[in-house]
């Protein structure tokens, strides 16, 4: 069980929660905690906080709880929650925004998800398209799960579902530029936000 001193929650923490909500294009006050997001979530049983609780902690300003939560990293971004929310709260976007904020704060509640993210982006950046066999191999090596796909890999190779050939798109330089631009824009924005926060303090 957690203990929260609501009066001790700092303005900075509240602003951090607001920033996440802004990032996701959501007004946290819209959520009235009905639980329909959690009810439909296919991954809720694997999560440490259910989706509703993530929104609730953001409402309370308890940003640390949210940044350390595994839930946003487990979220499959299937958008069931957002599509069914009676108040039009885009919970799915909140999960994405929390994940970015968490990564930016140097936290890795689910390291595998972080590794997979990085490898996926690197893979797409290099080839213009995801080459799943190499992505899987790189992920398995970096995450230490060396043998996890051995059984499947041989069968998939035999049936021709994956191959050793590397696919490279013609416009992969453009894709790489696109990825770089997006990553650069995100870090600039976050750096500015951090400065602004520092300036206020």
């Amino acid at each position, binding site marked *: 069980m957690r203990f*929260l001193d*609501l*009066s001790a929650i700092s303005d900075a923490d509240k602003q951090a929660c607001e920033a996440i909500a802004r990032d996701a294009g959501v007004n946290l006050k819209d959520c009235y905690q009905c639980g329909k997001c959690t009810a439909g979530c296919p991954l809720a049983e694997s999560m440490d906080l259910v989706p509703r609780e993530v929104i609730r902690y953001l409402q309370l300003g308890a940003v640390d709880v949210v940044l350390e939560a595994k839930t946003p990293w487990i979220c499959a971004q299937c958008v069931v929650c957002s599509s069914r929310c009676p108040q039009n709260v885009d919970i799915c976007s909140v999960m994405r925004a929390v994940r970015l904020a968490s990564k930016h704060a140097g936290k890795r509640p689910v390291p595998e998800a972080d590794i997979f993210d990085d490898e996926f982006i690197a893979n797409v950046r290099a080839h213009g398209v995801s080459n799943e066999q190499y992505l899987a191999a790189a992920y398995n090596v970096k995450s230490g799960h060396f043998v996890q796909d051995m059984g499947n890999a041989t069968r998939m190779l035999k049936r021709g579902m994956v191959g050793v050939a590397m696919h490279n798109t013609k416009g992969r330089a453009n894709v790489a530029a696109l990825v770089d631009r997006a990553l650069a824009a995100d870090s600039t924005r976050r750096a500015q936000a951090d400065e602004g926060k520092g300036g206020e303090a």
Partner: protein
Amino acid sequence: MSRIGVFLCYCGSNIAGTVDVEAVAEMARSLPEVVYVETNKYTCSDPGQEGVKNAIIEKGIDRVVVGACSPRMHEPTWRKLLADTPVNPYMLEVANLREQCSWVHKDREVATAKAIDLVKMAVAKVARLQPLHSIEIPVHKKALVIGGGIAGMQTALDIADAGFQVTIVERETSLGGKMVMLDKTFPTMDCSACICTPKMSEVGNHPNITVKSYSEVENVSGYIGNFEVTIREKAKFIDYNLCTGCGACETKCPAKVTNAFEQGMSQRTAIYKMFPQAVPAKPVIDAEHCLKLTTGKCGVCSKVCPTGAINYEDEDKLTTETYGAVVFATGYKLIDWKPLYPEYGGGKYEDVITGLQFERLVNASGPTEGHVLRPSDRTEPKSVVIIKCVGSRDPNKGKAYCSRACCMYSAKHAHQYLDKVPDGKCYVFYMDVRTPGKGYDEFYMNTLHDGAQYIRGRVSKIYKEGDKLICKGEDTLTSSQVTVSADMVVLETAMVPADGIDELAAKFTVGRDADSWLVEAHAKLRPVETNTAGIYLAGTCQGPKDIPDSVCQAGAAASKVIGLLNKDALQSNPQISRVNETLCQGDGACVNICPYGAISIVEKQFRENSRKVVRPVAQVNPGLCQGCGACTVTCRAGAMDLLGYTNESIMREVDALCQW
């Protein structure tokens, strides 16, 4: 020898489908004193009724048995039919062959046997009935409204506008009730006093309304159309014919008394008006605190009064008048939370206040002139905790019921606080948010967007640390224990019935529930009537309500009263209890059981064994008796009889059933 006619109905196939009606008719023809039996496909149809009427006249029938649907359905039809014939409308018995026979049985043989029994019983009973005649009860075209809050004022205005005289009895020195204490009303945020005071002056100036302020009901007797009510007007010590309401006396009075209107947050003088817009706009002297009346020294008010209106010799006045109808609009008060909730400080923390105190704190004419300042040090609280359901939904410490208005009331308080203190923080602890009203949920959602932090859970304890009030609770939405350090705490306390309601309701024999709310005649279909004819309910005396619901019920009660007062006389139901004075022991068991207060014990003179003796006997008031029959089964001596359902006629029915 009586001449009984039996009329049996097929009701299409409703009865005839399961009951062999012709077999029942054949049996009926063999019964003693039955001179005519007829069957009909639909007896209640116009030709069916015409046939019954003709048969009665042609065959010289003097008692009628109808075997058809439930008497709840068509007994009034048959009584009306008999009124057009020489037969008395009460020489009638309905055998219920449909709801209690054909509809509940499948076996034709069994159903027919039962129908035969039912008709036998009805014939046996009707042979012993006596003709009954209703009496006319005159109606006094004047209404009494008890309570001058928004419900009472609305009722009085609606009745008076229909052209009837109304008297309002108000216990306090002014009309207005609780509504005039409120600052704003949800969800429109109308200024409460601005919409309430025009009603007050409309009532005060209405030619058909008499306002008796500072008055209470002393005594009641009588019944519907004829309530004789004695009203005690407490001594005001001021001649209202002379007083101009200039207020000079109030500025000079040296006595200082806790101001109840301001919820104890300021002081008033001993000669006082409740608030500036009071109606009547004239002061009274509070005899308990006036120096002249308690010590004999002072008399400043009489010296400064320019019209000589002060009269220290004034006494309570009793007046008795007759009213045709009475409306209870006695309202509510807030539960005394202090002895119940030691965990919230039990009153030892000055900055733990009630919702009504908060209303006065944000009111421009309140003790702080509308600035939100906490009572202890008159500083602006930067953090306020609002706790809902204090005394409500708490059967252990308070009441089991929901007080209905507090969810909106607390949303309004949060909104008002954040409006007046934009940099303040407001936390609302709640179990549920119940907003079933037009525009209510929208108002609540707006309050959330104003920045009120709603925390789902009850506060377990409030304690002091420095000048902060620490509230310990749970956020059940995250299963976290939470604390808030607040500058001020507002408790949204439960509504309970006004003081003295038990005694007042007992005087009028109006029923109360376990929490002393007055009980309506039927929870769904007769919501403004009481079980005592001629007495109606308006507003929160019946249960917790908000203002729109109170006004709505007030209008409904008024329309019932107008309907009653429009009649010149009422036809009484002649099926009432009768006392056999020879058997009556005068022990009063019937008086105790009667739910309508219709029976009293009187001393009466009798000749017994050639001697005059005086002994107590029961007496039934025909205006109050509703013919429920409770007294007839209670009376040990068998002295009580219900006309139309006499002990003898019921025994005859049982006999008929037992003759094989």
